[in-house]
């Protein structure tokens, strides 16, 4: 079976900074995969390269077999990305935002699915509210909804729960787990290691643009009996 994501020897420099130093990684279809590392490790650069927002200097990235540069339209259709920054278009309300995002992906009448996403993310009451008037947590939910409007088989969540209250986190994770159960591949970056420990079947730890550990969550934890993923993370980063 073709991997959901295939990354081969990807290198990216920003000036003299080597953001990605030859990253290779395969993520199987249906996985709940964690991409962890300290700030500046290269997680967001790797995700941005996958999404086509960053052009790598060398190497290849594929989504379900489609090269993100040569075959970018097919690759982007299969990918949903929740960006890390809290960004929004201030001209539109929540429903308009989601309808527009659906249209960008070639879907015209998508209200049934939009309603379902709104309900699952507890946004139904805010559907007609302008984006400017939403709280930070609500805006974050809309970002998640925007990434899901086209039902992408591969979903990338770049720190989706940063600055979000406990209730939303629980609602979000239950929704994302359901999507994963339905076959969607989930790639998660987060600084909340307990969330990664609870959700991810496999984890890659990144440091200075490289993958320094890659294994199932159980195997990583087994190396430090009695410890948490946070212990694994701290010790791996010190090595």
């Amino acid at each position, binding site marked *: 079976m073709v991997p959901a994501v295939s990354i081969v020897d990807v290198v990216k420099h920003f000036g003299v900074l080597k953001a990605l130093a030859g990253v290779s990684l395969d993520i199987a279809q249906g996985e709940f995969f964690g991409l962890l590392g300290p700030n500046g490790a290269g997680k967001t650069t790797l995700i941005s390269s996958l999404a086509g*927002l960053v052009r790598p200097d060398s190497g290849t990235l594929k989504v379900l077999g489609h090269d993100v540069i040569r075959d970018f339209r*097919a690759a982007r259709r299969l990918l949903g990305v929740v960006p890390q920054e809290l960004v*929004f*278009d*201030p*001209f*539109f309300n929540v429903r308009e935002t989601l309808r527009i995002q*659906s249209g960008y992906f*070639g879907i015209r009448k998508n209200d049934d699915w939009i309603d379902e996403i709104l309900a699952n993310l507890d946004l139904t009451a805010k559907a007609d509210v302008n984006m400017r008037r939403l709280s930070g947590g609500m805006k974050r939910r809309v970002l998640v909804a*925007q990434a899901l409007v086209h039902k992408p088989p591969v979903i990338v969540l770049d720190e989706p729960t940063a600055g979000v209250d406990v209730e939303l986190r629980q609602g979000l994770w239950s929704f994302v787990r359901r999507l994963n159960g339905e076959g969607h591949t989930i790639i998660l970056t987060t600084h909340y290691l307990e969330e990664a420990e609870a959700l991810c079947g496999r984890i890659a730890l990144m440091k200075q643009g490289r993958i320094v550990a890659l294994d199932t969550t159980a195997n990583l934890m087994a190396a430090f009996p009695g410890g948490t993923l946070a212990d694994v993370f701290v010790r791996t980063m010190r090595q």
Partner: protein
Amino acid sequence: MIGFWTLFYKELLRFWKVAFQTVGAPVLTALLYLLIFGHVLDDHVQVHGVRYTAFLVPGLVMMQVLQNAFANSSSSLIQAKITGSIVFVLLPPISYGAFFAAYVLASLARGLMVGVGVLAATVWFAELEVVAPLWIVAFSLLGGALFGALGMIAGIWSEKFDQLASFQNFLIMPLTMLSGVFYSIHSLPEFWQGVSHYNPVFYMIDGFRYGFFGVSDVAPETSLAVVLACFTAVSLLTLRLLKQGWKLRA
């Protein structure tokens, strides 16, 4: 195609939601120009045998078409870049051509809307004829599209609002103000007449005005050829920048 139509619709909606500012304000500005210059010069100046106020109206219409087409694409892109919401159009599978066409056509729509508004507001103050309507249509469409594309380049290039303002204040504004909106270039000294021929906006204004009065400084066919060449060059450059992801994709 749905991606293109959605982006086009979103760009239309974006300026329409603030139409008071994006359409109403430029119409008022043009009306003020007409009232002031017309009041001062109408009894004293005739150009190509036409009273000054009548001569001025087509120039003002075209100037606003161009400036607002430019403002639409440039402000939309810089705003999206600065707020980060540009990712919403960079992540989906929208082709470069569709991206270009949606921004340019929406800019053209705003330019034409303002142009019609200026015409409707100013036509009461001047005796205006329409001798060759096809020239009016051709120059307004091509000129608006050219400035929409130019606005895209400015929006993509700029990283801050003041960079965009520089582009607007030091390039677009002089090109439009010194293009013959307020005068015929035949009233200029020979040297400045020569310089005016290097300004592509001059051909747009002159050709557009020909559609109203049937007289112009340059043959409308020549003007059309110049504007078409400029539009092709600017469009190709914009498409190339989009394909490269210049200043949009790191």
